[in-house]
């Protein structure tokens, strides 16, 4: 008798121990996955956060050298100001930082501390403050990428001079400016507002954010209604036979097709046959819709299938037509699931790169697109473009763009969760 009890206890202990081990394996697997996510985030964040501020250098601009009476600016139109010749005036303002420099070569080096758009920046300042310009104004001019990177500590100063883009004399100027308190940081708003640029300090993600938003908008407009209607038909109205089986298999296959294939389809049919404009969010959206449709259809069908059949019967039994039963009762219950599927599909589309490369959304676009018919880049393509660039400024901008992309993805997934929580039918 006691033997049997002992046996039982032993076997129970064995089972409990194996459960403990199993639990440790599971926790281990989860920690491993989590650790990689954490490393990824840390890596991207640590190299990307510095793109959100930029180095500016304070310059005193003597406007009196440009015009006799600075109040006259207030009477000038923007066009008049655009017509003012300001290049050498702007350069002189910068030389004013180091009045002792005589040599032309050194002056050139000094100018190169600044972004090439210094003249434009002074002009913009003049335009937006034209009504009260003093004789001398202090303007914060964007530093060149090299200075920016040195200031952020991303640039090794101890290399030989011929291996550095920034020269010794420039470092001297820079250190002197720092000592005089003229170098400072400010929030990098232009990074969020501007389009791409060949100058790293001037390049922004604004163009690709807008491009991505337009693309997603096109995807939403196309694939949401088509996906929902297709799913409703297949789930509620279509007879169950070989043809619908075949369609179902193909939709599932479509969901597994590599995305670059859709890009080829877009290139061959949408661009070449239909002649829609290349590199545009419209075409990108159409191509990504094809990719998103199966996701939406599968998710919507699953949530339609989850609606208890008794609801359909209840509606039919009071004399509703099949369409009324479906549209009044089944679809509202299934909607949160369908929306969740749609948002997840959109998030996929947002992060998709390969098909966009083939339809030309990989182009270098300086302007922020105004409509879905303007050429534009998108966030993931921007990452791809910048990751290939040599300048140091693009390294942090690549990571910062990934941060923006991840931010949008997290926002969308959050929206999916919230929608599901809020509109889920409580039984």
């Amino acid at each position: 008798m006691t033997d049997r009890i002992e046996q039982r206890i032993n076997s129970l202990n064995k089972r409990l121990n194996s459960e403990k081990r199993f639990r440790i394996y599971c926790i281990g697997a989860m920690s491993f996955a989590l650790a990689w996510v954490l490393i990824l985030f840390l890596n991207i964040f640590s190299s990307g956060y510095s793109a959100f501020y930029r180095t500016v250098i304070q310059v005193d601009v003597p406007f009196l050298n440009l015009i006799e009476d600075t109040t006259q600016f207030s009477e000038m139109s923007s066009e008049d100001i655009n017509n003012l010749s300001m290049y050498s005036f702007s350069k002189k303002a910068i030389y004013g930082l180091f009045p002792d420099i005589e040599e032309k070569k050194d002056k050139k080096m000094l100018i190169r501390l600044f972004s090439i758009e210094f003249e434009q920046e002074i002009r913009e300042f003049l335009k937006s403050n034209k009504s009260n310009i003093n004789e001398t104004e202090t303007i914060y001019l964007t530093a060149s990428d090299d200075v920016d990177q040195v200031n952020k500590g991303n640039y090794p100063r101890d290399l030989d001079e011929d291996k550095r883009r920034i020269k010794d004399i420039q470092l001297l100027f820079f250190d002197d400016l720092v000592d005089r308190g003229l170098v400072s940081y400010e929030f990098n708003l232009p990074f969020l507002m501007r389009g791409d640029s060949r100058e790293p300090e001037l390049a922004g993600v604004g163009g690709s954010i807008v491009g991505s938003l337009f693309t997603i908008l096109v995807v939403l407009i196309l694939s949401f209604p088509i996906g929902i209607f297709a799913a409703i038909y297949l789930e509620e109205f279509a007879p169950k036979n070989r043809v619908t089986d075949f369609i179902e298999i193909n939709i599932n296959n479509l969901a597994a097709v590599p995305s670059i294939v859709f890009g080829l389809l877009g290139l061959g049919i949408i661009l070449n046959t239909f002649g829609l404009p290349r590199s545009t969010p419209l075409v990108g959206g159409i191509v990504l819709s094809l990719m998103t449709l199966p996701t939406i259809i599968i998710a919507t069908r699953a949530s339609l299938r989850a609606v208890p059949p008794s609801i359909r019967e209840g509606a039919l039994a009071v004399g509703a037509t099949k369409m009324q039963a479906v549209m009044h009762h089944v679809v509202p219950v299934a909607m949160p699931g369908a929306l969740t599927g749609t948002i997840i599909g959109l998030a996929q589309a947002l992060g998709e790169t390969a098909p966009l490369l083939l339809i030309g959304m990989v182009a270098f676009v300086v302007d922020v697109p105004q409509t879905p018919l303007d050429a534009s880049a998108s966030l993931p393509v921007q990452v791809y473009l910048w990751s290939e660039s040599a300048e140091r400024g693009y390294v942090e901008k690549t990571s910062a763009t990934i941060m923006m992309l991840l931010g949008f993805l997290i926002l969308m997934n959050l929206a999916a969760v919230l929608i599901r929580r809020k509109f889920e039918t409580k039984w």
Partner: protein
Amino acid sequence: MKSIKIKADNLNVYYGEKQALFDVSMYMEEKQVTALIGPSGCGKSTFIRCLNRMNDVIDICKVQGKIEIDGNDIYAPDMQVEQLRERVGMVFQKPNPFPKSIFENVAYGPRIHGIAEHKSDLEEIVVTSLKKAALFDEVKDRLYDAGTGLSGGQQQRLCIARAISVNPDIILMDEPCSALDPIATARIEELMGDLKTEYTIIIVTHSMQQAARVSSRTGFFHLGKLVEVDKTETIFSNPSDQRTQDYITGRFG
């Protein structure tokens, strides 16, 4: 002798290859409760679902024979099934209120059929239906709460209110009490007694006591065949078929 409301004539029903009903012929009297009893899988639910053509939903279901309501063949090609279901309401085994408010549950039928022209008419229909279903007093303060938040018995009465909201002639009840406790069951049975003054009721039930309590005529189904149909007293006291005798005395089923 009451007038005959529903008449089924040589009804055969197939689910694909499998035959579920064999030559069922019976009639049901107007404004009476007719009970259908029999063991599980005997075809009584199949039969009742033929009466408002709910079986149409099932692709593989095929119906042969004839069912007449007030002398009209309901399987005739020109019969519109939505119109039929407006006249033949149905209450299901498990309460299945819509996941909407109590008011919306009852208002849905009248609304889609265009019965109520004004909002006030609709409100009146909802209140009358809830009263007829003996639910109004319990829910009058929370008409706009979710119908799915009610207790099981209340939900089933809500479904009855929904069925009578479109003013049918006939109410089909497919084991309406099988998911309910005895007290809720008693309330529904009591309700059936009130409703039969206005409606013809067909009820499928597993409980022989319930059949005996509520119905005036009872049909006994077994293996897809209608074994016997007669006055309820006769079925329960002096059945003519041995199988009926065995079933009601609890020897099988």
